[in-house]
């Protein structure tokens, strides 16, 4: 199983990208998009990659194109959107790894530092702290993984 790092991109930006694409008829050249939105191209690429990981856009050539799932997400209210994001997160091996480890714990929770150790083992080339924060951020959005910074505990929010 290939563990792909989760980019440190706010999911609000990913959904904003889908809305902008929808506004433009569902597709746009990536470079033109960066110019019209006045966003640095490197930053936009990160957002596009995040959207692609979640199967919300495809990137044939230099185009960014909304997928059927991306269009479906836009039709939902915020809680419907979060459900779609959760479904997609559960398909990512890195999320599956964390969710399965949390599920195996007696109270479905573990210390943040243990999560960091797990990530060091499975994604040794990544900055584990950064990756853990990205997982918590996306996990909170999908109501899949929660985190209490007072106790330093990561927990399974609602798996299904």
């Amino acid at each position, binding site marked *: 199983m290939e563990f792909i790092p989760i980019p440190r991109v*706010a999911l*609000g*930006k*990913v*959904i*904003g*990208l889908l*809305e*902008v694409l*929808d*506004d*433009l*008829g569902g597709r746009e050249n990536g470079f033109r998009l960066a110019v019209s*939105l*006045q*966003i640095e191209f490197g930053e936009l690429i990160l*957002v596009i990659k995040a959207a692609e990981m979640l199967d919300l856009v495809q990137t044939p050539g230099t185009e960014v194109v909304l997928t059927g799932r991306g269009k479906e997400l836009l039709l939902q*209210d*915020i*809680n419907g*959107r*979060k459900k779609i994001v959760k479904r997609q997160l559960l398909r990512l091996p890195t999320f599956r790894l964390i969710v399965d480890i949390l599920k195996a714990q007696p109270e479905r929770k573990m210390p943040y530092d243990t999560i960091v150790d797990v990530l060091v083992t499975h994604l040794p080339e990544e900055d584990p702290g950064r990756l853990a*924060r990205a997982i*918590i*951020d996306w*996990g*909170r*959005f*999908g*109501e*899949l993984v*929660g*985190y*209490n*910074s*007072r106790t330093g505990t990561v927990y399974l*929010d609602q798996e299904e």
Partner: protein
Amino acid sequence: MSPEPSTAPATQVERPAQARSLLEVAALGKTLSLEGKLLPILDGVSFTVREDEFVCLVGPSGGGKSTLLRIIGGLDRPDAGTVRYRDVPVSGPHARCAFVFQTFGLLPWLNVNENVELGLEAMTLPREERRRRAAFYIDKVGLDGYEEAYPRELSSGMKQRIGLARAFAIEPELLLMDEPFSSLDALTSANLREEVIRLWQDGEVPLKSVIMVTNIIEEAVLMADRILVLSKRPARIVDDIRIELPRPRNSRQAGFHDASDRIFRLIL
């Protein structure tokens, strides 16, 4: 007198007939004293906002839009003229009105839930009702899952969602937003604009009308039923434009660019 609303060239949509008046602003004037010099900010500003209207205030930067919003919300007093809310003069902050600011206004040592509940502490509500409302509006703005998060752990878009939840939890009829998206990047603001419109249209939320200050003309055309165009200081209303593009809107709709260009020429 404020001009009668003129209509931007756009497709006609059904509107509620004879919506009731919510807010009446009449002949407002305000002068500030700055280093011994008198600086007129507002000069004879008059308009009415009806129920179920989304009104945007646009105009040159530093032109008094925020001052006008603060006076409407009772946070500032005018030197001349009156503000009446449901026919009652506004003389201070009132419970049917809530603000959303550009800078979020969050307390960093409180988590999401506590920041939202904080807005309710000034109201004499039973603790259970405070909890119910905080949970309901946290859900409505998409912050479920973030209840225990502190502002430092959140993106700017999520921080502004807290600002929205806190304002909505007061259950205002009139929401006053002062450039709520201007400190967000283009993608995050595209996302939140659309969600604010959904919340305004949500039948479970008692909000009736919105007045939003913005410096982005396209944002006003995307969101507003009416756009009040203010002159440079001292601000007067130079046009009151009804936008009747069907919702949901996008910039490719016929009439969108005509409306934007018309406002742009007024502000230039």
